[in-house]
């Protein structure tokens, strides 16, 4: 394993300090990184691996395994549409098609202008008011095509 010190990226240092020595620290650390900068910069992987005494391949493997972790910056707004069975029973397919059409990207895509990331999820636990979605961490239920358009429009106007 390489031990060459390439210098820890500035914002990463306090996060490494906070997580070093914690049992099973990698996931909490990756969450902290993604919370701080919106994704897990691949350039940070060597420092993360070294701090937790893991190989780079292990860290990379974990980042790639979990859909939540991103290796590139997300769009300014994160639209998460549910495609679980309860929401499918209430018209989620049409809503997904509508969002894909409005934003011009498929589920899992980011708009080229960096405004939106469109994600699918298999249940948000909001099945009591399907179809459901999450927009920038805010939950929305009983969605209709009109409400989805309104949500996208309000997000578009926000920075």
């Amino acid at each position, binding site marked *: 394993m390489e031990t060459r010190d390439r210098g820890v990226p500035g914002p990463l240092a306090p996060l490494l300090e906070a997580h070093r020595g914690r049992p099973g620290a990698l996931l909490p650390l990756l969450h902290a990184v993604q919370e701080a900068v919106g994704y897990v910069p691949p350039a940070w992987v060597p420092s993360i691996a070294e701090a937790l005494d893991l190989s780079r391949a*292990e860290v990379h493997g974990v980042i790639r395994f*979990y859909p939540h972790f991103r290796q590139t910056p997300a769009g300014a707004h994160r639209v998460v549409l549910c495609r679980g069975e*309860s929401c499918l029973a209430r018209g989620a397919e049409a809503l997904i098609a509508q969002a894909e059409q409005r934003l011009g990207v498929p589920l899992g895509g980011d708009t080229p202008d960096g405004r939106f990331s469109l994600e699918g999820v298999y249940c948000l636990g909001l099945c009591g008011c*399907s179809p*459901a979605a999450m927009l920038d961490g805010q939950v929305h*239920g*009983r969605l209709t095509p009109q409400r989805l358009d309104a949500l996208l429009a309000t997000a578009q106007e926000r920075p």
Partner: protein
Amino acid sequence: MNPPRETPTVVYVPRDAAALAVGADVVAGAIHAEAARRALPVQIKRTGSRGLFWLEPLVEVATPQGRIAYGPVQPEDVPDLFTAGFLSGASHPLRLGSPEALPYLQGQDRLLHARLGVIEPDRVDDYLATGGYRALEQALALEPPELVAQVQRSGLRGRGGAAFPAGIKWDTVRRAPGPTKYVVCNADEGDSGTFADRMVLEGDPFSLIEGMTIAALAVGATQGYVYLRVEYPHAYRTLTAAIELARARGYLGPDVCGSGRAFELEVRVGAGAYVCGEETALLESLEGKRGLVRAKPPLPALAGLFGRPTLVHNVLTLATVPVILAEGAEAYRDYGCGNSRGTLSLQLAGNVRRPGLVEKAFGMSLGELLYDYGGGTASGRPIRAVQVGGPLGAYLSPSHFDLPLDYETFAAAGAMLGHGGIVVFDDTVDMARMARHAFAFCADESCGKCTPCRIGSVRGREALERVLAGGPVEAELALVRELAATMRDASLCALGGMTAYPVLSALEHFPEDFTARARSGRPVQG
């Protein structure tokens, strides 16, 4: 401003995520603003949800006659409610009367979910006032074997899906040698159509904390983890706040309630992988690794987290423990039927008129749940299919609606209750598409460790896509059956193993959706 002369009227507005999703925060804001405008003293308390979701946002007012409910309340209804005098429980088109008297609630056996929508989840005193922490007090006076015996006598089985007897697991972990043991709560709640874990975490978090503390005393653990899915940010905030409060009041920490025994609890957040709800993948994930399923043996009870004996349970299983101690193991056991004892948290979802949480003793019929509670479909069309037990559960047709809801009956019918999720579909559903969805879900979420699951799910999805596109039905369906059977028999865990349930049940109970396709030439979308 003058201090209010009268004591304020208490108004309850849920802060459960599903209530927020239909505007509960905006309604709370509107009530606050309208009260200020009219100079009326009002105190808004934020509770969990009672789980009557078609009535959310469900607002309740404390009156001398008890609580009076109004719902579903939209922000624009608020001025009108004030004018009608809802603060004193006056009549209004949205008035529902006493919430407890609503048939949907009155018919239930709310043991585990008694506090949902009633207490403020972030107040220890609310919890104490409703019987909270009495079970822990009892537990501290008991020897671990006696605690385990109580759980055994209650007949409690795991509510996460596999329905394994909890007492046996407790006994195994208790007897396992070693100074370090763990209690892990599985709060990954990945199954579509389920939300009861989330409601407990958001609406009654101390019941889980108390249950985990008692479990730790019984098995000899001093550290606990809650593995919570990342899709539940509201539950995360409520639970972490509750843990802090419990610690500040001495219910967690180095000296639980002055007993000299330690129990620490930490929340760890998942990262969007369904398979991490499987207990060994969950443990891998807690250890900071990829969520690959481990081969058993060893059992997690003997070699679990970091190789130590570990008690893994679902949220509902653990939160039921205080109920069992408080009510008595025999009293709990008196609910239910056969080998399914106690109550089951059923979650009605999908195309149903009255979606929500129904806690009932095992044994009610599926039809009773769908019609008496659910009220049929939301669309008003006939119910055609029902998926019971999450995305790996079987699709049932109305010919199954007489089945009583208990573990053994469902298993005998080639189905499973799982975590209690019930998703309703009307007669516009295309079951070939739902079968394709089941394969696609498995393909997306497979951990990749075994070939039948990793490859079979993709092949199955492709075969059904060819059927949907009007391809040759017989050959493709033979392939689908073969793939599903191989996955069922040769997968390491239930993700690959049980994908056969939705696929084969759709084929068996709704064959016309597959065979008629070539003739009608229905196009495939999406």
